[in-house]
């Protein structure tokens, strides 16, 4: 139970009742409202697995991703993959096609199981820049589309790109892709400082041209801004610049720099200042500022998951919901987990081979966090958070984990305070519980509208 002003929050029932209630009243309320059982169900499942030796059952999926290369034409100062050029490992057309055909079969299983025919979602991202080897990229995309069409499988293509594209490349991507994310760091001077080319030349002009093109030609466009702690204070300026320049229909996604790759050294040096660089406050102020100035716009951050979830991580092998093909031809369950990937198979002589067993570091952390975090105010919304980030922070001895956790807790305290004062906050609000026996106690239930 958690106190929010004059209320107590019961995370097992998603309700708020007055702190002043006697124990008998609380018991009466609880007896009339069913307890959410997903924790116990999932706990039992998780406890049955030995993370050091998990039997692999590659089953139905509806999403997959391809990381074509680790090569990149930019040298972003926080790149988590430390991408550069000259990496020998790179996928060929045949590798990608073999993988996609396997995924098409698994998508068909999903269709049978769910009875729904949602498009197969295929995402291209890094590692490096997916468009780095353009001649390969422009061969692969139409081939995949043709293959799916021949087999009657609806396809949705997505990409994250650094935006260093020419006109014909922009046209190609706009023609073939359904969702596009372009990395752009909010303001030209910050973009040029963070996301420069090999020779430190500026990139803002070309990337802005790319975003402009997509914003005019593609309905689903997200700008991803990765932000260093000492640039949090520029968030409002970034918001104004982005929405003025590219229009109000784009989505703006903000992510604080995470401590891997090129970012690690600086994060280690500066981590004592992390609490001063309060991302949450700057983020909330920016949202408030934009709301007052322009009405409600699409701004988000992956740091604060914004829904009630039964499972946070689909990347642990036992719940794998998305397969990723990497440049070294291995198949893994998560693209973000860097050196801690759970490898479940590989492409060998144009065949997909899944291993019988794997060791799953992510599952081990998830099992641990799942119990540890049970009593946290944010637990129902983050279920212990991203196991890959936890593991990286622990192994690299950074304080990012504590920083992120405390922000998420503050975020939910903020949301609860606002909704209990009658406001709507990030889609959340409270509704009165309409059960006759407890109606007089004015119990409030957490609810959300998109």
């Amino acid at each position: 139970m958690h106190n929010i002003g004059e209320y107590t929050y019961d995370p097992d029932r998603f309700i708020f009742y007055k702190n002043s209630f006697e124990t008998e009243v609380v018991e009466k309320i609880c007896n009339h409202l069913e307890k959410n059982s997903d924790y116990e169900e999932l706990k039992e499942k998780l406890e049955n697995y030995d993370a050091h030796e998990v039997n692999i059952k590659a089953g139905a999926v509806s999403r997959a991703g391809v990381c074509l290369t680790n090569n990149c034409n930019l040298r972003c100062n926080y790149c988590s993959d430390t991408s550069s050029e000259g990496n020998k490992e790179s996928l060929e057309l045949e590798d990608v096609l073999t993988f996609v055909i396997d995924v098409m079969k698994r998508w068909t299983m999903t269709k049978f199981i769910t009875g729904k025919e949602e498009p197969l979602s295929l995402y291209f991202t890094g590692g490096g820049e997916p468009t780095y080897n353009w001649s390969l990229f422009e061969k692969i995309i139409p081939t995949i589309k043709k293959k799916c069409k021949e087999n009657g499988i609806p396809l949705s293509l997505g990409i994250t790109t650094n935006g260093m594209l020419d006109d014909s490349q922009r046209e190609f991507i706009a023609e073939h892709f359904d969702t596009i994310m372009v990395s752009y760091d909010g303001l030209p001077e910050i973009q040029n400082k963070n996301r420069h080319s090999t020779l430190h030349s500026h990139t803002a002009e070309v990337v802005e041209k790319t975003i402009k093109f997509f914003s005019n030609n593609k309905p689903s466009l997200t700008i991803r801004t990765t932000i260093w702690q000492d640039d949090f204070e520029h968030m409002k300026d970034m918001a104004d610049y982005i929405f003025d320049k590219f229009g109000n229909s784009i989505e703006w996604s903000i992510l604080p720099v995470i401590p891997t790759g090129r970012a690690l050294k600086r994060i280690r040096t500066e981590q004592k200042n992390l609490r001063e660089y309060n991302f949450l406050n700057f983020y909330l102020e920016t949202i408030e500022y934009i709301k007052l100035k322009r009405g409600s716009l699409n701004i988000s951050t992956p740091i604060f998951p914004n829904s009630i979830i039964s499972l946070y991580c689909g990347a642990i092998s036992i719940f794998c919901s998305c397969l990723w093909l990497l440049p070294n031809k291995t198949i893994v369950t998560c693209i973000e987990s860097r050196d801690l990937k759970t490898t479940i198979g590989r492409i060998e002589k144009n065949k997909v081979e899944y291993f019988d067993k794997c060791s799953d570091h992510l599952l081990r952390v998830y099992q641990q966090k799942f119990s540890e975090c049970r009593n946290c105010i944010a637990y129902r919304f983050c279920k212990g958070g991203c196991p890959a980030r936890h593991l990286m922070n622990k192994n690299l001895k950074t304080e990012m984990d504590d920083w992120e956790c405390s922000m998420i807790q503050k975020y939910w305290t903020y949301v609860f305070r606002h909704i209990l004062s009658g406001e709507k906050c990030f889609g959340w609000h409270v509704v009165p519980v309409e059960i006759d026996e407890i109606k007089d106690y004015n119990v409030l239930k957490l609810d959300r509208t998109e």
Partner: protein
Amino acid sequence: MKINSIEVSIQKLEIEQVEGTLIMYDSISKKIIVFNETASFVWNIVTESERTNDNINTCEIVDKISQKYNVSEIEQTKIRNDVEEILKKFFDSGLFQPIY
């Protein structure tokens, strides 16, 4: 229809074909069955025979596969073994049910 002179009924399942692989779903047992290329080919031959109300046997199936892939006599022996194995699996898994 008869397979190798045995009167059989073929279980009706939801079926999709992806790149030559048959994927079947039994909505009652919630089981998914994925056939390899040869098994998919055998299944197609048998169900086509059922559709045209013809009987079929192992030799005829082997002949059809040999014609399609233009295989040698030595390879035919291996194919025959595979087909026998596949038909056995179809019977064992209940996809083909003998009618007595």
